[in-house]
């Protein structure tokens, strides 16, 4: 375990209004750059957080713009963790499974356009899931991005066996 002071935490609260996810995107971009992620990975992380915030705004909240979406970025030597919390005021709880979008069905008019956000997030980050929230009724969407690249991980895995 790392001592707690090697962790850096940035917290952001944005109004629950479409467009404000852009602030979360820029914020995580600055943090990810500071952590030394390369440009491609930064673009991935920015898109993942934007999708998560868009969902939190669209499905987790009511239209009252005073309601806030909370984004917590926690970085340590090993990983960047992202938590996106919404008040959970939506019509339905978040899904437990991610469905792979079928573009052929969409193009043929057999499936409705959309339903790609969670799938894209899942492909872009190392871990993504809704987690049980504590006392309140809000939803928490949790993402993890490891700072090592795949080669490092393979290298270390090989060493440890």
């Amino acid at each position, binding site marked *: 375990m790392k001592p707690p002071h090697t962790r850096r935490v940035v917290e952001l609260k944005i109004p629950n209004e479409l467009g404000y996810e852009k602030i979360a995107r820029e914020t995580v971009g600055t943090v990810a750059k500071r952590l030394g992620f390369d440009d491609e990975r930064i673009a991935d992380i920015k898109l993942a957080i934007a999708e998560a915030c868009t969902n939190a705004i669209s499905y987790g909240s009511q239209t009252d713009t005073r309601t806030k979406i909370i984004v917590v970025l926690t970085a340590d030597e090993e990983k960047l963790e992202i938590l996106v919390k919404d008040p959970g005021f939506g019509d339905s709880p978040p899904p437990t499974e991610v469905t792979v979008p079928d573009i052929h069905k969409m193009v043929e008019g057999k499936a409705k356009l959309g339903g790609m956000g969670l799938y*894209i997030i899942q492909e872009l980050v190392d871990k993504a899931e809704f987690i049980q929230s504590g006392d309140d009724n809000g939803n928490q969407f949790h993402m993890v991005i490891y700072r090592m690249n795949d080669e490092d991980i393979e290298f270390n895995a090989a060493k440890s066996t």
Partner: protein
Amino acid sequence: MSDEIQVDVQYIDDKTAIIHLEGDVTTFSEKDINDAYKAASDNDNSNIIFNFRENDYINSAGIAILIGVVTEARKQNQRLIMAIPSSHFQKIFRMVGLTQYADIYSSLEEAKAQI
């Protein structure tokens, strides 16, 4: 937020139009993109080139708009070509299967060379 994208249509010959996009491809650009696609299709153009920039941004709502365009282009028997310099963008397009409905190149020059 609609000023976050700039969309221009350029007619390069009687069969080909280029839609130049610069900025954020999101919900807020739906009308701009659909209008540009209609304008590009008006002249009976059979080739439509989408020209993205290196620093453009797209999210799942933007992808959905492009799937809408793909759907319409199939009906009209148009050929869709996309110039996408950003490798992040190309990855997202592959991920959702858009690459199966449009020919993707890394630059406008390469895209134009195909027609």
